[in-house]
């Protein structure tokens, strides 16, 4: 089990969170082919090392945030709110 530092709530047990997948850029659905859309849906980087991913604090503040985690050691070096949320709030 690992501790995950939520940007709002501080370090919490990972079982409080839902893993929401690798961080990726969503293409514009109106300007993309079905093949490109499926590649966005399905193809993963799945690295053995540092990765940027989304988490949801299910039993805490119920917010999505971005984490940088090492997939071999499960060390977490940074968590932050997603850039899009920061922009819309400002």
């Amino acid at each position, binding site marked *: 089990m690992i501790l995950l530092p939520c940007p709002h709530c501080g370090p919490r047990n990972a079982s409080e969170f839902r*893993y929401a*997948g690798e961080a990726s850029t969503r293409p514009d659905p109106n300007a993309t082919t079905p093949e490109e859309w499926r590649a966005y849906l399905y193809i*993963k980087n*799945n690295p*053995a090392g540092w990765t940027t991913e989304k988490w949801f604090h299910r039993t805490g503040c119920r917010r999505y945030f971005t984490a940088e985690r090492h997939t*071999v050691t499960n060390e977490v070096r940074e968590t932050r709110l997603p850039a899009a949320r920061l922009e819309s709030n400002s």
Partner: protein
Amino acid sequence: MTRSFFSRNGTRSGYQKQARYSAFDLFRRGLSGAEWPRAWRSRDPKSSYDVVVIGGGVHGLATAYYLAKEHGITDVAVLDKGYIGGGASGRNTAIIRSNYLTPEGVRFYDRSVKLYENLSAELNFNVMFSQRGHLTLAHNDGAVRTMRWRAEVNKLEGIDSEVIGPAEIKNLVPFMDTSEHTRYPILGALYHPPGGIIRHDAVVWGYARGADAHDVHIHPYTEVQGIDVENGRVHGVRTNRGGIATSKVVNCTAGYSSLISGMAGVGMPIGTFPLQAAVTERVKPFLHPVVVSGTLHVYVSQTDRGELVFGASVDPFTSYSTRGSLEFIEGLAGHVLELMPSLSKLRLLRQWAGLCDMTPDYSPIMGVTPVEGFYIDVGWGTWGFKAGPVSGEAMAELVATGKTPKIIAAFDLARFAEGRLVGEKGAAAVGH
């Protein structure tokens, strides 16, 4: 085509005789004290091979074995970065069954069960396949509906599979709590008599020995560090023991399949998740069939040694770590006791984790890739071991003939780009 490993005088030109295991040979060597020859040889890698198989587990070794035996392609190397059978082939819970949900899946896994039934004779190696029956419990109406659906698909494909009620379950497993006063009362089960468990290491060793008898080279501790691709064609692989020129590479890895495919520039729809399992101390035989509960996320079987083997669903986030967690073992113990309260005094001996390549549709990915000469047999998630023989057979045919066999045609990589997924979640999410 059937062909014995050796001609009548017991030798084939160019390589050392393997022992043919038999009761007589055991008796003879017991009297004479003669050494047993090694099951497979260790050698230095050549600078080129016709086919290089990456991954020395059941899938890679079966592919190499059937390439040599069925198609006469013996200039084959099997590379593994660790020891033979040390990855997912040695970490699964060794359950074999074919009661899947989609017709493609049922046909495919049933071929594997048929191959497993004859494997001990085929390989002259006791793989201890015990077809003791397989029960998938249903604790709610939705699960009962899926069980009936599966049973009907299974019967149409000629598989022995039926839905049974709590009284029949109690008959098969007297220690199961089938009362209505539990948190998740048991409403019924999908009963699959040909399902069972196997000695997974023996399957790996048997295929390695069989491949070696056909002069396939097996190279443990040989890590692939790069794949040379030029103009969309494979030219070779780079390893920690030197470069190997080849025009055909088969990726038969689990856990690390994204990384290997990435070396050839092929993107994978795969996330690597650890799956934990555990065994108890040994007790007298009391549990005959394999028992699986999707609702409780647990499956239980008793090995021939008497240990209870427990497995569960994958960890909740991707990782390449194979460390176990206390949280997992607490949850697992609680779920097992929901099913069989009488096990409360049993002690757990050990737990471990293996890496599972989860695909979006819970089906594997087999076949060609956009890179010519680079084949994949990956995405085996939590359902890979039971498919080892049929995958090896089909991948060998693909590599030898260049044509995708019908039995794996639905599982190609292109299905993700073309939007025709093979949804097996109802039969593969938990219950291996």
